[in-house]
């Protein structure tokens, strides 16, 4: 067991180093220059001397290998550097955005998983009936719609048409309220972005759950359970649902890692201050420090989610434990 953990640790260590290196070299391999953001607009009017000074200040005049070594050194010391575009410590920028992103993506991940599981199980239970087919139709409809389109429709109906929800932001900028009023204000701003992501996300869980459930419902032990005279509810929840949850758990874990990378399109449409939009802007402006750090955060989150999945799987599926023991 200890040996296995050691191998895992080495595996993850190598993985993280490789992604750190990729995160460093890939943005620099892109054509384009961060100079416009380092020197301000009218960058073309800079004298050669000023240009050299600006590049030197950000160590961009050094050989790539030296830059990488410095980056690694800073990383070990916990220094993520300063954003080129925003002139602020990268760690600070990410710390500001991360909670909003997590609030948005984690909420919708949980909601979409719950809804997807419930509807998927229900649809499989009623396989072939009109309710199953119409639900499938509705889900495929949302699944095939581009996310920005769903978002724009929701804004048109619920924000502009009915005036129930605000159109932009994470809370009202001029709000001085505290306590519940503030919580409500945040929830109100969260509603439409979460609804968009949930509509799209639950479709995936729904499909996975429905097929897993169909599989399980064909198993002999379900027939046995029915033959024992157990109620349909007990057969559905206790015997079928639990066993069909494994693939859903896998999908959940895969998505969990990516919750920190935000939802660029939805964040853009709702002007939500999350990490997705931030990363997109960092790519456009060739903001290397910000790119490296935000990609690193995503990498770490995905690795962590993987680790979590590895640890949780034996608990969810006794077969994994058994084969390990064998």
């Amino acid at each position, binding site marked *: 067991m200890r040996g296995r953990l050691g191998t895992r640790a080495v595996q993850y260590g190598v993985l993280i180093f490789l992604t750190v290196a990729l995160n460093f070299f890939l943005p620099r391999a892109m054509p384009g220059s961060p100079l416009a953001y380092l020197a301000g607009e009218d960058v*073309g009017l800079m004298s050669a001397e000023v240009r050299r000074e600006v590049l030197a200040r950000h160590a961009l005049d050094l050989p790539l290998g030296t830059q990488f070594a410095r980056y690694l050194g800073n990383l070990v010391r916990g220094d993520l550097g*300063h954003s080129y575009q925003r002139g602020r410590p990268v760690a600070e920028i990410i710390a500001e955005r991360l909670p909003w992103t997590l609030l948005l993506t984690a909420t919708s991940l949980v909601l979409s998983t719950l809804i997807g599981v419930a509807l998927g199980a229900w649809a499989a239970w*009623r396989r072939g009936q009109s309710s199953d087919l119409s639900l499938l139709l509705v889900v495929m409809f949302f699944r095939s719609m581009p996310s920005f389109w769903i978002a724009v429709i929701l804004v048109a109906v619920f924000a*502009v048409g009915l005036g129930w929800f605000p159109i932009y932001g994470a809370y009202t900028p*001029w709000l001085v309220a505290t306590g519940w009023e503030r919580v409500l204000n945040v929830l109100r701003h969260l*509603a439409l972005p979460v609804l968009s992501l949930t509509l799209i996300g639950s479709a995936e869980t729904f499909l996975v759950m429905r097929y897993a459930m169909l599989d399980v419902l064909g198993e002999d032990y379900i027939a046995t359970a029915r033959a024992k005279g157990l109620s349909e509810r007990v057969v559905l*929840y206790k015997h079928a649902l639990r066993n069909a949850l494994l693939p859903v758990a896998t999908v959940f874990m895969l998505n969990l890692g990516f919750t920190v990378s935000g939802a660029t399109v939805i964040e*853009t449409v709702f002007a939500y201050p999350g990490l997705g939009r931030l990363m997109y802007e960092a790519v456009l402006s060739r903001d290397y420090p910000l790119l490296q750090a935000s990609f690193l955060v995503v990498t770490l989150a995905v690795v962590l989610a993987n680790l979590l999945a590895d640890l949780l799987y034996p608990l969810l599926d006794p077969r994994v434990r058994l084969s390990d023991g064998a």
Partner: protein
Amino acid sequence: MVRTTTGRAGILLLASVTVLVVAAPVVTAAGTELRIGTHTDEGPLTPYGYTFGYPGLQLVRLTYDSLFIMDRERRPVPWLVREYEVSEDGKRWTLRLHEGIKFHDGSDLTSADVKFTYTYMTRHAHAVWQRALRGIEAIETPDPFTVEVRLAAPQPLFALRPLAEVPILPAHIWEGVTDPRAFTDATGSGPYRLAEYRPGHFYRFEAHPDYFHPEWKPAVGTIVMPIIPDATTLFTALRAGQVDMATRVVPPELVEELRQAPGVAVQRGPSFVSTLLQINAEREPFDRVEFRRALALAVDVQNLVDTIQLGYATAGGPGFVHPMSAWLLLPGPEAQYDPDRARSLLEGIGFTDRTGDGLREDPAGMPFKQTILVYADRADRVRAAEILAEAFRAIGLRTEVKAMEAGTVDSLVWPEFDVTKGRDYDLAMWGWSAGIQENPLSLRELVHSQGSLNIGAFSDPEVDQVADRLLVATGIADFGPVVSELARLVADRVPFVTLWYPDGIYAYRPEAYDGWVYVKGLGILDKLSLVTRRVEVPEAAPVAEPPPARQRGWAWLLLAAAAGAAVVLFGLRRARPARP
């Protein structure tokens, strides 16, 4: 049973949260807020920290003042300066400041701050400020309200640049700041104080209660600027009354719709932004003036204005200079559309169609193809490039359009933003910001063989000679004749094809605030729009409530339809026999 109860309790909880969230009142601004939806996050809004010239620099100018200011006709007039004198040889400027100018932290702005700023900005790299301050030999401050600047040579544009351009920093805050790009304190002396900045979310400005100016005072108490990057969301928010003004230029296809929208007003005016077809004059056959002239003659700029901008633009003048530019004394040359002459020019330099496929081969008889590079995220420019490609094919030139990510296009057209680093393109859709039209010296940078903005490596001794005359101008009046002559030459030698100058079109809600001033060539987001002659800080009109119920009818209909569909589906399910 337990499971069912939990499930029901969960559903009940979810439902009550939803009802609470929906039923909570929509928070509208409390009365003195003006909500300006801005389309980019401009960073910390210090003179070193803003990101783009527009809207960033306009926001910096709300929090900082400069010695002069550009009036609505874009002429420099005194601002922090009360009166000034220029010595006869034009080399000594004596500037007397207003008394009682306060920074937002309550300290006084004096001549020492001016001297500090000009010295600091000369030493700390910034493309705009550092360049603006070139040629200053010495600055003296005989008393707290007098600044004497000695120049190496007369600068006829000194009031424009640097006086109206450079924001004055508080010396006591910036002393000892070694990395200005990483410094985020935006304390200035401007009419508004940056009270809060939430990156990626919003800015909040408060009126400066002790604003110095005897005539002009902040016009509103608070300005909130939510950052809304998506154009659709921004203009939807404006229409729904959730913002009062949008900094983004209204796209041509939205202009009529916004004009019709209740409570929304649209202002339109000339803009000095330019869109052009950039030519790489270093590469064959674009190095031949006849070839470049043929390209220009094949382009119908008015058609581009009508198709791409739906008429909301001024057709490009082949001399580059905007027809409303103050520097142009004579009417500029007019664009000519003459494909037949273009064809004969091409024939004349050996570009003929030898294979009979309607496309010309080069003088050596080899197939010829040219490529237009364009930013993929600029739909208007991509469409324009396609129209241009068609026009060039019509005169027999095989043309391909290549849309690429902006940074990639930049790296091919203008590697590292340094024209000495070479270039790798034939033709590119390009644009210059308004500032280039405003300063005649920028025109020289654009077309002179040594110019730092000459991204096409265009070189013509006659153009160089005329452009150099801009450098030795000793008075404002000297520029007009030179600019006019240069425009004529540029039209003849075609370093690029100027396609159009898009109109500045801005939308706002007049019931929230109606003090917007259209500043020529720039737009309505300007310090002049947000200061007023009234002495007291007035309360802005209350912000509009969400749109009237009339508009909501269709949304209810849609909801009712969805509910109806659900009932029908449910009914269908019930109507079927239960599962055996």
